[in-house]
C-alpha cells in the first residue's frame, strides 16, 4: 500500500520530466559561416584577361583544375581597344574551358581607361562591359566588378628619369559604388593594397561593393610569408581574403 501510493505521487513527476525533456531537446539548424564549414574564405583574380598581364592561360586552367580551385578573371570587354591584339579566341577559351571549369569572368570595365571615371560614362564602364561579357559567354554570370589602376593621365608626366602616364588615383569612387548598387551587380572590389599584415583581410561581413584586395608583387620568400600570414588572418578572424595576380605562370613576375 505504501509502495502504491508512492508510485502515484512519483508518476506525474516522471511524466512531466519526460515531456519537458522532449520539448527542450529538439534539433537545431544554422547556416555555417563559410561554405563547407570552413573557418575563412579566400578568392583571387587573374588581371586583365585577354588584354595584358593575364599570364599563361593553359597553366591557369590546368593547375587550378587539378586542385579543384576556381578563380575570377577580371575582363576588359572591349578587346580590340586593349593593345589591339585581343580577339574571339579568348571568348572561346572562356566559353569552352575556363567557365565550364568553374572560373568566372569579372567585369573590369570597357576599355580600362581612366577618362571613364566621369559620371556620364559609368554606364559605358559598367553596363556595356557586363553586357559584352554576358553576350560572349552566356554561361558566365557576370555581376562582380573589379576595379583597376590604369587611370592613366592623358599626357605624359615625368616620373624620375622617365616620361610616362601615371595612375593618380583609384578608379572606384563613391559615385561608382552608388551607381553599381542600383544596377545588376552583387559586389565589387576596391582599394588594392600591398601592406603587410592582416590589414588587407576583409571581415566576415562587410559592404560587398567594397571588397578589399591584396596585390601580389614580385614573389620570393618574404612575399610567400606575407601571403601565408594573410591566409591565416582570414582563417583566424573568419574573414575573406581576396588576391590579385599578374602574369600567372610566366617567368617574369
Amino acid at each position, binding site marked *: 500500500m505504501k509502495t502504491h501510493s508512492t508510485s502515484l505521487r512519483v508518476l506525474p513527476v516522471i511524466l512531466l520530466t519526460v515531456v519537458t525533456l522532449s520539448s527542450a531537446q*529538439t*534539433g537545431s*539548424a*544554422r*547556416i*555555417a559561416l*563559410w*561554405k*563547407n*564549414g*570552413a*573557418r*575563412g574564405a*579566400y*578568392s583571387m583574380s587573374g588581371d586583365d584577361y585577354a588584354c595584358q598581364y593575364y599570364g*599563361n*592561360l*593553359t*597553366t591557369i*586552367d590546368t593547375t*587550378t583544375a587539378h*586542385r*579543384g*580551385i576556381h578563380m*575570377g578573371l577580371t575582363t576588359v570587354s572591349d578587346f580590340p581597344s586593349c593593345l589591339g591584339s585581343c580577339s574571339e*579566341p579568348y571568348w*572561346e*577559351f572562356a566559353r569552352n*574551358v575556363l567557365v*565550364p*571549369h568553374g*572560373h*568566372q569572368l*569579372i567585369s573590369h570595365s570597357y576599355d580600362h581607361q581612366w577618362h571613364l571615371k566621369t559620371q556620364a560614362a559609368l554606364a559605358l564602364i559598367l553596363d556595356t562591359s557586363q553586357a559584352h561579357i554576358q553576350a560572349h559567354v552566356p554561361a558566365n*554570370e557576370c*555581376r*562582380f566588378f*573589379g576595379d583597376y589602376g590604369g587611370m592613366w593621365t592623358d599626357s605624359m608626366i615625368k616620373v624620375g628619369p622617365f616620361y610616362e602616364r601615371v595612375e593618380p588615383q583609384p578608379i572606384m569612387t563613391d559615385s561608382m559604388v552608388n551607381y553599381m548598387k*542600383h*544596377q545588376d*551587380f*552583387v559586389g565589387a572590389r576596391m582599394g588594392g593594397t600591398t601592406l603587410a599584415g592582416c590589414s588587407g583581410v576583409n571581415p*566576415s*561581413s562587410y559592404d*560587398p561593393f567594397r571588397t578589399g584586395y591584396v596585390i*601580389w608583387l614580385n*614573389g620570393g620568400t618574404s612575399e*610567400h610569408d606575407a*601571403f*601565408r600570414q594573410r*591566409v591565416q588572418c582570414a*582563417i583566424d578572424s573568419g574573414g*575573406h581574403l*581576396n588576391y590579385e595576380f*599578374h602574369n*600567372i*605562370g*610566366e*617567368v*617574369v613576375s
Partner: protein
Amino acid sequence: MGFSDWITVLNYLKSRVDAGDLWVETPQRVTKYMMERDNYTVSVTADNGSAMTIEFNTSAEINPSPMVANSVYSDSLTLVITTRYNQSVRVNAAPFGGAITVQYGAGGVTSVTQNGVPLQEIPVGVAQARSTLRAERSAGTALARQPSGILVRNPSGRPVTVRVYALSGQCVVEAQVTGPGNSVATNGLAPGLYTAVAGSASIAFAVQARGR
C-alpha cells in the same frame, strides 16, 4: 608571377582547404554566400523525435537594386544540423530548393533530403577532399597523354567532344570520340604547350621540337 610561385600558392591554398580551414571560390561566389548567410535564416519547423523538417526564410531583401532580385542569391549554403541526440551533420542546401528533411535516431543521422533529393553529408578536412576527388574521378571522362595523342577514357561510352587549345586560346584540334577508350592524334601540332579538354576533364601537355 612565375610558375613556381604560382604552384607554391596553389599548393598552400589546397592544403588549407583539405584541412577544412579555408573555402576557396571566385570573388562573386564568396560575396553571394556572405550576403545569403547574413540575410537568409533557417529554422526547425517540425521535429517528432525521428525526423526533422528545416526550412529557409528568404524573405529579407538582400540587394536594394531593382535589377537584382533575391532569386539571384540562390547559391547553396552549408547548414550545420544538430539532432536532439547532439549529433551534427553538415550539408549544402539550396535556399530556394524546398524543405529539408532529416531522418535520425539515437544511432545517428540516416538521411538528409531536400524536396526528396538526397543531400551529401560534408565530411571534415582531408577526408572531404579525398572523397570529392574520388567522386570527380569516377564520375566521367578522363584524359591521359600518349606518345602521339591523347587517350580518352570515357566510361559511359557516349559520344564526347575533345578539343585541344593552344596557348593563344585557339582551338587547334576538335574530335568526337565514342566508346570507353579512344585516342585523339596530336602528332600534327607545332611544338608548344596545349590543353586538351573533354567534358569536365582536362590535361596539359607539351609537344616537343624534334631533335636534329
